[in-house]
């Protein structure tokens, strides 16, 4: 655990030694405000909740999380530092967890810094704080899933741009598979079990109730299992491709 923490601290420090974290957090805050106020009409709705804010998160993460994830392994392989890292007395899993938690922490910090929105809705009325906390936790979990996918794509290539594009594409599939456009295309001919299965893989389906503040076990479980599976896939890919 001490080793993971040391690796975590190094990764986190590297986010703040370069402009990456600052740029990311700034853009995250600007975009989430734009979405919430202008597109989601937080004020005009006149309701004391953050639903417009959380509803946009899957779309926000779709581009922003791959941007954080793309450097995790690609950069290590491109610069050759992976050879240094992997010849230290640590396991690949420890390196992976250090990286994952550092990036996840940056995402968590970005979320925390949206607290002014939370304060804002207090002017509109009496928000249910439990609902908002639950939605924040759920959103962070979903961000972790995007991140695990992004890291897996980063493990596949030395090229950060390729890693970014792959991650956006894969994440996009997992987002839209629950949208009405996709499901309508199947509705006319596919049996409902197929449609349900496709929908059940979607982040949208699982985030829907979380955004409303319901942290159901199966939704939380879905994101946790997804994170685990994608991280495990990254582990196998890194072991296999580290020297290429």
């Amino acid at each position: 655990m001490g080793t993971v923490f040391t690796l975590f601290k190094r990764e986190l420090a590297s986010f703040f030694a370069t402009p990456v974290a600052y740029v990311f957090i700034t853009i995250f805050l600007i975009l989430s405000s734009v979405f919430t106020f202008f597109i989601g009409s937080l004020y005009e709705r006149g309701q004391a909740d953050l639903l417009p804010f959380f509803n946009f998160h899957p779309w926000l993460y779709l581009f922003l999380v791959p941007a954080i994830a793309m450097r995790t392994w690609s950069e290590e392989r491109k610069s050759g530092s992976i050879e240094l890292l992997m010849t230290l007395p640590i396991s690949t899993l420890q390196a992976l967890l250090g990286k994952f938690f550092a990036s996840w922490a940056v995402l968590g910090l970005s979320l925390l810094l949206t607290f002014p929105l939370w304060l804002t809705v207090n002017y509109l009325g009496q928000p249910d704080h439990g609902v908002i906390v639950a939605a924040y936790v759920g959103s962070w979990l979903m961000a972790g899933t995007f991140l695990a996918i992004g890291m897996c794509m980063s493990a596949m290539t030395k090229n950060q741009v390729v890693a970014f594009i792959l991650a956006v594409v894969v994440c996009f599939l997992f987002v839209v598979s629950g949208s009405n456009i996709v499901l309508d295309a199947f509705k006319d001919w596919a049996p409902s079990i197929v449609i349900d299965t496709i929908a059940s893989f979607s982040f949208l389906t699982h985030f829907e109730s979380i955004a409303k503040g319901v942290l159901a076990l199966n939704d939380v479980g879905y994101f946790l299992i997804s994170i685990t599976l994608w991280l495990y896939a990254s582990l196998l890919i890194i072991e296999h491709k580290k020297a290429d």
Partner: protein
Amino acid sequence: MIYVNNLSKLFGDFVAVNDLTFNILPGDVVGFLGPNGAGKSTTMKMLTGFLAPSTGGIQIADLSMAEDAKKIKKLIGYLPEGAPAYGDMTPIQFLHFIAKIRGLKGKHKAERINTVIKQVDLLGVLDKPIENLSKGFKRRVGLAQAILHDPDILILDEPTDGLDPNQKHQVRELIQNLAKEKIVIISTHILEEVTAVCNRVMIISAGQLRFDASPEALLAKSKYHKAVTLHLSYPSDISGLLELPGVIDMEHERSTGRVTLLTQNGADVLHDVTEHIKDRRLPVDTIFVEQGRLDQVFRDITQGVKA
């Protein structure tokens, strides 16, 4: 204490390392020589546990790399080719990070960090990001990292590549001053480095081990081993030198006035040559016995020509 058995590495169909078998014992300072692409780095990557062998095994300190890689990695200090490091960190941050990962603690950690900073002379750049350092300093940061935990086994892939002559000298001194019971493996294509610091030479070419003995034995393979080279102040008739017993051939560069007498099986001919020079009053201003020319032996061995 390093035992390598029938080690091979294939990349697809390409055989990068081909059936290497050797042992390295404490006290051995091995110069790992070979042309570019010979498989030096690939072998080192397997020795350090970065790459898994395609076939064959590595045993280090009674541990098998396949089973106890993590324990073995604790014993090894490694400078990968090109001295990769985390560019956004400063050398002092980087060394603290490595020290923590290596399990150094408290006072001992501070002592070790101070020692290596002095050893590789990093004091002036401790707070500059590594990516902004010159090639020489980057290499030294990599070296510092490798010797930080005072490892029993030190594996350095081209440690002096890109250094200026002073820095090269410094690195060689550092290696020579390491404790005597350590194992050091250095890859290089600078031949003089081998005679300067190593007590054992391994030459690989096309993934195969072509030579494994002392630097002296390597020099002895040269056709210039014990050859006598002299320099003439002005042209003169030197054909008599070729008649001397033990001399089998003469190379005469007329433009420079340099003459080299090749000897049979490394016979001692210096005495006869000086006598001859005295008798004939030849205008010789320099004369010395060569140890052998490494570049020629190296070419012969790696290109498969008989030495």
